[in-house]
């Protein structure tokens, strides 16, 4: 295999436009690399080589005429939550096993509209509920990274673990993910990749299997900050089919990368220094602060006082919305059916057989908090706490332009090490979930390796609609970090 797959999206785009490589060759190489890695990484759930080749051929024809979009000929992997027409889309759940959408999600349609080429669907936690990719119906994805000198299998994070692993292992040039509580940023941090979610509503949710509608943010994984800006640019924009899709014009995210951060005020929230956080995370954070200071930023201590309430609020809002969204899986119009003695029994057997334990647990919590008499005490209160969390951000952004925090409270952990304790697993999202509740843009950028040789990410959060500042700061961190480490190939 050539080294083409190791290039960044931006660099390979240049080679495609210069006709140094054809989209068809590149697509073949990417599919072969994904398939070769599959037995070890288990990152993929479906391929469709005819589709891949047809898209690549069409891209080559446009490139030959000197035409082509932002992503012309670039192979991308797609999280199994996005409907891709004619390709198995199961949200890594048995209840949707074999489901082939007859329509295309808006986000993937936009990517194909810019000339991107489909490579594979990627594995994820079932219905995006998880932080380790262990709840997938096809089994856990394995992180390409291992502890130096070790051989234990680590989680790539979740829920978008397959996409993160695929990008980290250089099997494609970018991938889609969705972030409901941290499902892009935490796996990005665990795999040394860049992961972004824009402002809530920047990317359309239409055709994305719904988890928690008020929190779901589609976004990209990439190898570099600039690549992630190109991808988010292509994915963003108003969609009349999603009533929460922002009508605002999409700024030039790509142009923001590399612009000076001199004079920007960077907030460092004291509430993100949590008990039991490894010293190395603290060190990486301080390093990030020092880099930005050296680049001319002003560092400001800030307070986001409601931070500790974000996860408990999330674990009301997300299960409540999920229990409602997942009511549609009744085995009647699509998905799998288990026949029972009567209609109710059919529903109950279908759902018990089709959903895994974590999904059932969350449906149960959601059903309980929405049940008669509890709505005000739980859901309504949580939505009010959410307003408090947004107010924290609004007040902070009076004083600062961006907020810098660690992306996750640990580096990648061993598969199986947290699966018995739901709350320990939920705590993975302690730094990321606030941005979902408040709907503000946030990204994770690789900052360095810990003493075990595992990547650590830093998170940048900015005002709603101000992804440009996020990309500016992200690019500055990337530039200072000079993170060029790759997982040593074992797959």
């Amino acid at each position: 295999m050539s080294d083409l797959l190791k290039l960044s999206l931006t660099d390979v785009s240049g080679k495609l436009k210069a006709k140094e490589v054809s989209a068809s060759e590149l697509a073949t190489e990417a599919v072969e690399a994904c398939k070769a890695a599959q037995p070890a990484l288990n990152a993929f759930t479906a391929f469709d080589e005819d589709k891949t080749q047809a898209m690549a051929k069409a891209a080559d024809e446009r490139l030959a005429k000197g035409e082509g979009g932002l992503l012309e000929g670039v192979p991308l992997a797609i999280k199994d939550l996005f409907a891709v027409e004619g390709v198995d889309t199961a949200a890594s759940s048995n209840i949707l096993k074999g489901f082939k959408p007859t329509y295309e999600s808006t986000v993937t349609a936009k990517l194909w509209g810019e000339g991107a080429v489909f490579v594979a669907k990627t594995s994820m936690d079932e219905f995006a509920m998880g932080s380790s990719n262990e709840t997938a119906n096809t089994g856990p994805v394995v992180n390409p990274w291992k502890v130096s000198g070790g051989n234990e299998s680590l989680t790539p994070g979740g829920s978008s673990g397959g996409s993160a692993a695929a990008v980290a292992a250089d099997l494609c040039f970018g991938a889609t993910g969705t972030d409901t509580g941290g499902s892009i940023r935490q796996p990005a941090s665990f795999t040394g990749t860049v992961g972004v979610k824009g402002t809530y509503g920047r990317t359309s949710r239409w055709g994305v299997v719904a988890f928690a509608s008020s929190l779901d943010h589609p976004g990209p994984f990439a190898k570099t900050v600039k690549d992630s800006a190109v991808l988010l640019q292509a994915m963003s924009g108003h969609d009349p089919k999603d009533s929460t899709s922002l009508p605002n014009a999409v700024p030039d995210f790509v142009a923001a990368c590399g612009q000076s951060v001199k004079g920007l005020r960077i907030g460092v929230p004291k509430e993100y220094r949590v008990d039991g956080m490894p010293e190395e995370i603290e060190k990486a954070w301080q390093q990030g602060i020092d880099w930005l200071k050296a680049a001319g930023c002003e560092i400001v201590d800030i307070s986001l006082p409601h931070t500790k309430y974000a996860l408990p609020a999330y674990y009301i809002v997300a299960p409540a919305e999920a229990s409602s969204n997942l009511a549609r899986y009744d085995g009647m119009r699509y998905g799998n059916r288990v026949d029972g003695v009567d209609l109710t029994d059919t529903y109950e057997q279908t759902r018990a057989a089709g959903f895994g334990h974590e999904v059932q647990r969350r449906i149960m919590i959601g059903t309980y908090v929405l049940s008669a008499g509890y709505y005000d005490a739980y859901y309504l209160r949580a939505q009010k706490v959410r307003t408090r969390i947004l107010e924290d951000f609004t007040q902070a952004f009076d004083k600062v332009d961006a907020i810098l925090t660690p992306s996750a409270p640990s580096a990648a952990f061993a598969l199986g090490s947290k699966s018995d304790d739901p709350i320990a697993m939920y705590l993975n999202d302690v730094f990321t979930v606030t941005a979902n509740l408040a709907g503000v843009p946030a990204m994770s950028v690789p900052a360095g390796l810990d003493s075990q040789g595992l990547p650590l990410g830093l998170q940048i959060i900015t005002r709603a609609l101000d992804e440009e500042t996020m990309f500016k700061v992200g690019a500055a961190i990337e530039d200072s970090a000079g993170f060029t480490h790759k997982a040593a190939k074992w797959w």
Partner: protein
Amino acid sequence: MSVTADDVRRIARLARLAEPEDRVDALVGELNGILNWIEQLNEVDVEGVQAMTTPVAFPLPMREDKVTDGGIRDKVLANAPKSDEGFFVVPKSVE
């Protein structure tokens, strides 16, 4: 507030999930663990606070009330577990 085995059976029924009896005890423990953890939200002063809707306020989009899609019966039925002659086939629901 704590959840009992009967509550778990009732919630499972509401959620249309056939929970096997041997899962009930485990679920009582798991749900109580999570619900107790969530209780800390009671510490937050939410007096007079509006429930969150969106970070970027814009009016709910309206569109003209006309048919913009349709005529795709076979596509709609394509993923049905059971269908026949252009219809979904479902268990009998009215006696």
